[in-house]
């Protein structure tokens, strides 16, 4: 079953001579439980594609269907609620809320939705992330790796259909990077969550089940890896 359908997606900036096609007529599907790596040189449109899939940016044309719903037909508020429930975003620079502690940062999507937090699930998650003893720390009291774990926790707490990670290890050392990828793999296997990861690191890409290669706003290669 396709969890994500991207149809003729384009994102253009500027006009006439200054027209830049950041994403140029991209079409692909993802099935539930997929672990996809998007690779490509700088400026190839990887991050823009992820922002469009995550509903934080709007395309010039084309559609993005998640679980069969065209996300760009939603109102702004409904799109926000959709992001909160269906998409987990992980960024290179963690993007944690500096005034909230670890626990609050992780629970943020649920709290915004006024949902009761399943404390059992939360304990399991923080234990799995290895930050159970850091729950009352503020982001600036954590290392980069720890901050990224919190960011992953926040992306996973609502058990979204899709987890989008934009160079989640780009700011981390080698050991921390391995740990983060391992965590994402575990989530993919344990909870069958669909994960899309953008990376420059070929070793990380090779750990995915499928690799999409981008160049000049287009997907130039789509290969499924055998394990």
């Amino acid at each position, binding site marked *: 079953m396709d969890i994500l359908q991207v149809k003729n997606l384009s994102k253009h900036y500027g006009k006439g001579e200054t027209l830049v096609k950041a994403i140029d007529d991209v079409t692909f599907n993802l099935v539930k439980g997929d672990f996809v790596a998007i690779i490509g040189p700088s400026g190839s449109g990887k991050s823009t594609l992820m922002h469009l899939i995550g509903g*934080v940016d709007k395309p010039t044309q084309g559609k993005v269907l998640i679980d069969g719903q065209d996300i760009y037909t939603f109102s702004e508020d409904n799109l926000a609620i959709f992001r909160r*429930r269906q998409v987990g*975003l992980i960024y290179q620079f963690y993007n944690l809320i500096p005034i909230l502690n670890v626990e609050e940062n992780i629970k943020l999507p649920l709290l915004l939705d006024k949902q009761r937090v399943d404390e059992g699930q939360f304990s399991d998650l923080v234990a799995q992330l290895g930050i159970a003893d850091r729950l009352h720390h503020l982001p600036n009291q954590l290392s980069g790796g720890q901050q990224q774990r919190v960011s992953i926790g926040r992306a996973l707490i609502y058990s979204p259909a899709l987890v989008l990670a934009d160079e989640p290890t780009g700011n981390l050392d080698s050991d921390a990077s391995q740990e983060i990828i391992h965590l994402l793999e575990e989530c993919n296997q344990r909870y069958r969550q669909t994960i899309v990861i953008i990376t420059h690191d070929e070793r990380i890409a090779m750990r995915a089940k499928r690799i999409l290669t981008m160049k000049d706003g287009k997907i130039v290669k789509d290969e499924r890896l055998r394990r």
Partner: protein
Amino acid sequence: MNIIHTLSIKSIKKNKTTSIVTILGIIMSVALMTGLFLFSNGMLNFLRDDYGLRHGTAEVIIDEIDRSALAQLPHRDMIKQETTLALIGAEKVTSDYYVHNHVVGIQQKDINTTVPMDVEFGRLPENPGEALITPELNSLFDKPVEPGTQIRIDLLTPSSYTEKENIQYTRQEKELTVTVVGILRNTPLRYPMTEPTYFVLQTPEENQAAQRVWAGFSLKKVNDANLKTFTKDLPGSYEITEMAKYSPNVSSSARFFIQGFVVVLMVIVVAAGVGLIQNGFMISLSQRVQELSILSSVGMTKRQKWNMSLREGLFMYLIALPIGMVSGFVAMEILFRILTPMMQGFVQSKAEMTLVWEPMTLLQIALLSLLTVIVATLIPTLRVSRQTPLVGVRQQEEIKIKPRQLRSPWLVRKVFGLEGDLAWKNLRRNRRKYRATLISLIFSLLLYLSLSSLVYYMHQSTEITQSRGTEDMVLSTQGAESFRQRDSFEKIAQMDGIKESYCSYYLSAFYIPESATEGSLEEGEDRKSVQIISYDPETMSVLLNEWKLSEEDLKGARGVLVNHSFYRDDQGAIRTEKFFENPPGEFAVLIDDPDLKASHTLTIVKSLQEPMSKFNASWGDTPQVIVLPETMEELTIGMGQIEDILPYMNLRMIVEEENHREIKETLEKTIKDSEMRMDLTDHRGRFQRERDFITVSKILFFGFATIIALISLANIYNSLISSLRLRKKEFAMLRSVGMEEKAFHRMIRFESYFYSLKLLLYGIPLGVLSSFAIYLYLGQRVNVPFNVPIAHFAGAALTVVVVLILIMQLGSRSVRKGNILDALKMEMDL
């Protein structure tokens, strides 16, 4: 806890400096609003109390009504208290000016409860038959009435007590003998103001026997509707008094004026408050752009963002509201204590300025300040709710500025170097960010300059009035008989505490030009005014010495002509006027006599070519002839019917400041004890009252302007400090490429100068325009030339520059601290 709640509180805590300054701004706004509400209530209450002390507490007065009709009044159930003055009768009056003397009955129970009685001298009546009389009645007797004097009144019943014409009188069978125990200063129940009246204490039975009464009513509930209902079917003429008009629920021009004034000030406060709070919020939000977009990216809806921003405003409001209110109350209590004696002196009252408030007042303040906060948070809140998630995700703000907007004039670079160029570009870049603070500062500057001009014109008008005479007090009298007794008049000046004094006497007269014919004189065409002036012997001797003349020179109808006089031109400048190109050797003088019978000839022995600067007996465009007192006496002899009005006598005194009150009281007693009718004009007292009024105005105006300026200062502090903090990374870059401390200081200083310059370029011309508008409104009326209070303008300009430099230096100090690398690594959210 609700996450929106948590985020709001944590945001306030995180942006501590901005939050504290914003809270301070709200506190000042609330305090000012509280102050203005209390001032309005306090002032109206002061006026109400003052009226009550002078005229009694009745809200409605029926001028003249039959007692039987009084009992039949509609809506009697609305009356809380009723007071009646019995209209006993009238007495034939000796003066043409008045219709008759009024005889009014008062009751013991009403004295100083509903009928205030302020005794100028003497005492309150204690027994039936004792009476207080008005100063107007006292002036009609040959000599002032001594307390204890018995007067037999031949009572008449007039057809009307209040009409001035066509009154029929019926002689009453009884006579009334009253004992005058004092002179009244006020007009109880506004009984015909300035009428000669006896207020006679009566027994309740006597009072009830009077057929017609003057009635005052206090209503149970005073408001527009009740006053309308109560007065709708009242028989005869009635008056709604100031007691009602100053009441809280009654519309009146006095209330409208005071409250209108307060509303204007309130609008200024709200505008300043909105400016500060809005700017504070904008700053706080600009520091949290990334945070807000992250929240958006993890699913925070527009409504939730709106909610969060509004809550922040409400939290700060809840912290500031009680502190602001208490501060307002405390400040007004202190202010009222300072103002009360000044106001009492100014309006000659015993009323006090007190804090008057109701729960509704607090509610109004709370609602108004809440409205201010909501309005102030509206735009920032809208901006927050529109924040897209992309800004945070991309880790950078969209830069919308265009390069040509940052181009600096070559002159700036040439004159101020790279630092000046950087400072200029930065100001251009932050143009929009600084706009709100710039406007609020210009506004404060304008307010201050306008108030300075206002106070300047008020002050100047008082100074001009005061410059017309240097004397502190003038004792005046008139009449030939008094002039003959001028020795005793002159002796008054010998009392202790009078530093300098002189007596001047003058006769208003006409002189006859040589060209005049008998016919033209009779028609009054060729009459020209002249003043015949004389002085006490001592002053006369000083003047004669000055003129190198002897007393002998002036004997026998000889005089000195003062051929010049001071006058003030249209611009208010003092100029001199010359009367005769060729001063005449003789003056044919007609004393101010309608029959033109008393003609004398004065020989001019000397003509002065300068106006009299000292001992100047009068101002005006009339030549003066100074003669010996004996000559003046001769001029006044045989004047027949006009004898009583000639000549005018003035004793001008400069008194010791510390003994002013004492001397005034002694002089008042002298007047009372003297057989001569004299009036005392207390210039010093009046100047003091005018000065008090200006001081009161200054305290209010500048107090208000200072708090508005403080609010603006808080605003600019917020803007500049946050702007500098946001540029920490940029400063680190400059330092990393080799900008030394000195150059950095210079750059910051240039920014302050450019900012001040921009502010003054708008503020000063607007200030001059406003000053001119005030001159058109006020200056012209009091004949003060247009003048810009340069010292105030210079002071304001200097203050602006110094304050801006201080804030910039303070802000830059904190961003200069620390390691360059740390600052370079700094993220938006730190």
